[in-house]
């Protein structure tokens, strides 16, 4: 698959037009998506957008539009005006968005051709895309396996080479883990770097939109289009909210060794150690660091997140929009609509969130989880006085098989390395390492780089050095 800059070069020299690129994209979707099921909807009007991009290139009117003519796919929990926004939930099965999310406005203004919406775990809750009300997505590297989640459709759309980039959201790893499972670059920005206006809220203090791509340079282009303060999202940050995080010739990179002791697949650990060795050869310094609280991250996350979920999903009651199931009275209508509309994982998290927020348990759970979060943030900022970046595997294993993880806790454990990043609000990026062999199929596994708040430029810099340059991208 071509990168954005390669595509753009072709568009500029006229060897390919955006309309031709879109035709290729649609052909791939036609051929592969019956099996993969990355897409929920494919948009007819993408043709018109591609045609006008084709005209713009012919008129040399492309300078101000870094994504002009580039086909992209968007996770279906992000609002696109006039399009179905389902969050892969029955309760929003036929819901049509009445406005564009801020990031969609920006992507459109940059000339992107939005070709369709992608599948996800219902309301972005899950790590496998099996929780979609419209059926699971499969991993293009091995269709007996999951693509990860919750942005599994976006990851699969890029991995099956339908689109060069796709937009996802990441509340506890939902961009980075599918990037790891599908062999992609997956980037979660600093909390507040990118507007959440028009994203369906799951965990409001954790959610960020980001990008899945084939190269770090592509992720950077898209991040630069999407970022920025937004009056419609009061949590967006300004350029001076956090201190500058400078780019360097070589980096000191911290490895939280104690955190990597148990539960990691032997092959993943072997690839990770090899990655560290190659960093050393490149002149970076690898040091052991202590992040004892990060091990408690998963526990704190599975309190904070369901608490926010139970509040955010209260709005889906079948009254003003979405699917209504008529009951005997108003209360019964709520109960029936939500019983019909929500899948099992959504219900489980709503109940759990209601429990941890209830008056008798609030301090014991939610209060303590928020305190852990504060302490984790302090611990991490202390670590960042000694190192430039922190590194871990992205997920403890390669992609697992569809239906393999029935027990919710075993599914949640896949997030162990990614959730501390959301709890502390720092940016992180997953990059592909060398693949591992499973039953004769080569499966991707990822390495996660974590930077201080506002450290996106540093992530892109190291990413280009260790990934793009080696892949010839």
């Amino acid at each position, binding site marked *: 698959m071509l990168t954005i800059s390669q595509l753009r070069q072709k568009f500029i020299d006229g060897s390919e037009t955006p309309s031709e690129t879109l035709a290729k994209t649609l052909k791939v979707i036609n051929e592969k998506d019956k099996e993969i099921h990355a897409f929920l909807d494919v948009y007819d009007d993408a043709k018109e957008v591609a045609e006008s991009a084709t005209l713009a290139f012919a008129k040399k009117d492309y300078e101000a539009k870094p994504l002009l003519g580039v086909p992209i796919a968007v996770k279906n929990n992000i609002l696109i005006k006039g399009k179905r926004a389902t969050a892969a939930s029955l309760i929003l099965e036929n819901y049509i968005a009445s406005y564009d999310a801020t990031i969609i406005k920006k992507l459109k203004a940059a000339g992107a051709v939005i070709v369709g919406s992608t599948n996800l775990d219902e309301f972005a809750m899950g790590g496998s895309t099996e929780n979609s009300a419209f059926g699971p997505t499969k991993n293009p590297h091995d269709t007996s396996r999951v693509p990860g989640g919750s942005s599994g459709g976006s990851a699969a759309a890029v991995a099956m080479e339908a689109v060069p980039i796709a937009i996802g959201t990441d509340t506890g790893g939902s961009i980075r883990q599918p990037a790891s499972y599908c062999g992609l670059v997956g980037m979660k920005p600093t909390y507040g770097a990118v507007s959440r206006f028009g994203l369906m809220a799951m965990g409001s203090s954790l959610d960020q939109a980001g990008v899945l791509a084939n190269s770090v340079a592509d992720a950077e282009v898209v991040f630069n289009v999407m970022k920025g303060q937004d009056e419609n999202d009061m949590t967006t940050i300004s350029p001076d909210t956090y201190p500058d995080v400078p780019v360097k010739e070589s980096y000191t990179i911290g490895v939280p060794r104690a955190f990597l002791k148990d539960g990691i697949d032997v092959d993943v650990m072997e690839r990770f150690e090899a990655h560290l060795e190659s960093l050393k050869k490149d002149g970076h310094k690898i040091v052991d660091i202590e992040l004892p609280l990060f091990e408690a991250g998963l526990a704190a996350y599975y309190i904070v997140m369901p608490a926010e979920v139970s509040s955010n999903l209260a709005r889906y009651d079948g009254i003003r929009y979405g699917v209504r199931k008529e009951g005997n009275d108003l209360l019964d209508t709520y109960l029936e609509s939500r019983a019909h509309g929500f899948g099992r994982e959504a219900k489980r998290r709503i109940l759990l969130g209601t429990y941890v927020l209830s008056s008798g348990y609030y301090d014991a759970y939610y209060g*303590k989880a*928020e305190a852990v979060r504060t302490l984790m943030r302090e611990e991490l900022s202390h670590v960042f006085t000694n190192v430039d970046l922190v590194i871990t595997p992205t997920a403890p294993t390669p992609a697992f098989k569809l239906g393999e993880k029935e027990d919710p*806790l075993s599914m949640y454990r896949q997030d162990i390395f990614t959730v501390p990043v959301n709890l502390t609000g720092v940016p992180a990026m997953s990059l592909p390492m060398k693949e591992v062999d499973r039953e004769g199929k080569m499966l991707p596994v990822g390495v996660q780089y974590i930077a201080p708040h506002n450290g996106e430029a540093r992530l892109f810099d190291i990413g280009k050095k260790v990934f793009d340059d080696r892949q010839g991208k």
Partner: protein
Amino acid sequence: MTKEEILQLGNLSRVKMSDNEVAKFQTEIESILEYVGAVNRIVSDLDLKKVPGVVKNVLREDEVVETSLEDIDALVSAFPEKIGDYLKVKKILNPDS
């Protein structure tokens, strides 16, 4: 976690469940709570008062803004049930009470 507690959580959060779901959630939520209880080993009740939360509310004034007819149409057309441009809902006042 008792069956009654699960049903009470369902009532509070307006989620109706089948008997099968109640039974499953009973064991699953219990094991999740046991796992997340780890936060109590890190932060004691005493410490809790000393640690400020990271998350704070950012509020703005409520203001009345003009909405275009097109936007109103989009919202009205999303109503699950309507009479004309009015949203149809169940009556909430019971004449017997």
